[in-house]
């Protein structure tokens, strides 16, 4: 009954799921100079796959250039965005890509320590990852003097304890240091003052999984896929109303309509791109392209069909943010509660339009005044759902608003 067992089906895709043999990336990296690896990475234009889209090569270069007795590389496996499950698939089925990526990263930036921050919800993957690390140590891909070189690197796995906000890199570091997972003020950025005050690179699981491919097959090859501003491919986690939910590797730049055809979605009314913190796109926007320049996403794509009540969808998202806000800064702590109250009032038909407009303004204030990405992005779905589905939500004036569908 449990599905913690690995799906034996081998996946296919242009980049991440393309042919790769465990250890090849590490061997290739050791034959190159650090600058060459950084060059390939820059050439590939790889951007962070967690959602924020910061160029990976910049992070690595800044950390590589920092002089410090210790440096750290952290793999952010605190995948908590609603509708995202690609990292789970990578860690269960392709640990070699993620860990090889970490060793290459450690070698390039000059870090001796790697940490995987695995969300507590994925505790059932912990043992298999540990045994994979052990097999890497046996083959000398990890540990002291890797493959006879003078480079030593080891990886530890830390389990999180159920906090969405710890996916934010500075909150993640705080919790690793034994503090409440509250995001820090930035700057300073982790690349110069990170874990325990040392220069630290924090990369998403999928970002690291792309690295061995880039090292083996070049940045130029990687760039062939996707668009000019969004190079390479993306793992999309598709869920909701479609016949074939799951993880799909597709080149950036694919339109929402094309994706809906692939996952066999019928009678689609709307698509939530980027999870609860993303935006809700109605039918009229289905020709928009998925990519950093248009509809950006960390991978989450949730499909809603005609039967769904969008106000209830929004309520579910707002309840999520109220619970997961760390409570440190006022716009996010109070703002999300106010937005949820607003949704509940609309549900009961107990609202005025000037009140709704005030809430939208509050949302815009939260976007600029919140300390971290959580509060800066939580009003996205509030604003986009009320805007795009105003006919449906306000026409019924509260009636029929009590079910998701």
């Amino acid at each position, binding site marked *: *009954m*449990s*599905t*913690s067992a690995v799906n034996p089906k081998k996946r296919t895709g242009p980049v991440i799921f393309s042919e790769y043999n465990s250890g090849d990336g590490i061997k290739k990296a050791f034959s190159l100079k650090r600058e060459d690896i950084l060059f390939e990475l820059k050439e590939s234009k790889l951007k962070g796959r967690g959602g924020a889209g910061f160029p990976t090569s910049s992070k690595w270069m800044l950390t590589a250039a920092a002089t410090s007795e210790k440096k750290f590389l952290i793999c952010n496996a605190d*995948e*908590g*965005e*609603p*509708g*995202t*499950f690609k*990292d*789970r698939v990578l860690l269960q089925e392709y640990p070699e890509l993620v860990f090889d990526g970490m060793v290459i990263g450690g070698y390039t930036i000059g870090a001796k320590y790697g940490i995987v921050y695995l*969300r*507590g*919800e*994925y*505790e*059932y993957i912990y043992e298999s990852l540990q045994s994979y690390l052990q097999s890497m140590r046996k083959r000398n891909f990890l540990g002291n003097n890797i493959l006879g070189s003078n480079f030593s690197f080891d990886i530890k796995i*830390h*389990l*999180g*304890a*159920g*906090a*969405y906000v710890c996916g934010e890199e500075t909150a993640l570091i705080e*919790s*690793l*240091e*034994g*503090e*409440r*997972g509250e995001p820090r003020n930035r700057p300073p950025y982790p690349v110069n003052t990170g874990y*325990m005050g040392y220069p630290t690179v924090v990369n998403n699981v999928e970002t690291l999984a792309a690295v061995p491919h880039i090292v083996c097959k070049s940045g130029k090859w990687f760039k062939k896929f996707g668009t000019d501003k969004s190079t390479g491919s993306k793992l999309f*986690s*598709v*869920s*909701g*109303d479609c016949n074939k*939910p*799951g*993880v799909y590797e597709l080149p950036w730049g694919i339109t929402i309509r094309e994706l809906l055809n692939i996952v066999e979605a019928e009678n689609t009314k709307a698509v*939530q791109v980027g999870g*609860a913190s993303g935006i809700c796109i109605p039918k009229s926007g289905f020709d928009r392209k998925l990519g950093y320049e248009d509809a950006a996403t960390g991978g989450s794509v*949730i499909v*809603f069909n005609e039967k*769904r009540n969008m106000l209830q*969808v929004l309520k*579910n*998202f707002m309840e*999520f943010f109220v*619970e*997961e806000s*760390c409570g440190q800064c006022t716009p996010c702590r109070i703002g999300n509660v106010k937005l949820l109250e607003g949704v509940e009032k609309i549900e009961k038909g107990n609202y005025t339009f000037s009140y709704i407009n005030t809430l939208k303004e509050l949302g815009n204030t939260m976007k600029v005044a919140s300390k971290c990405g959580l509060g800066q992005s939580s009003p996205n779905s509030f604003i986009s759902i009320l805007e795009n589905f105003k006919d449906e939500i306000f026409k019924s004036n509260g009636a029929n608003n009590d079910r*998701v*569908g």
Partner: protein
Amino acid sequence: MLTLEKNSLSEEIEELVSLYGENRGSLLEILGAIEKKYGYISEFAQQEVARLLNIHPVEVYSFISFFSFLHSKPQGRNMVRMCKTIACNMKGADNISAVIEKELGIKFGETTKNRRVTLEYTNCLGMCDCAPAMLVNGKIYTNLDVEKAIKIINELK
């Protein structure tokens, strides 16, 4: 708590501290290990951890209160965490939750009288492609329906 129990718990915590390191950075791992074994972190355990790491006990409590998977009050022997985020919700998680509540005679957030089961809601479990999903003592169950869920729950009772 008996003196004997206190002593053995102290020893256990000392071992955890020497295993994970005598610094604040080990807090997540030490508390995670205590939670895993006892289902919660008692006041005495919090004080011991604080003493050994040389921090104030309130800082340990503050840390525990931040994380939804750490508890300062005793929980049931089995921890059921039902996902209530959107994808599971769309596939009928609320209906399953209602049936589970009825079957156990408790609400989410409560523990059964015999202390065998605690029910908790949790946010996205990352199982949206095989929703609805729940965690039982860290083990994942997916593609739930009422029948399946009740069978799992009744084995815990």
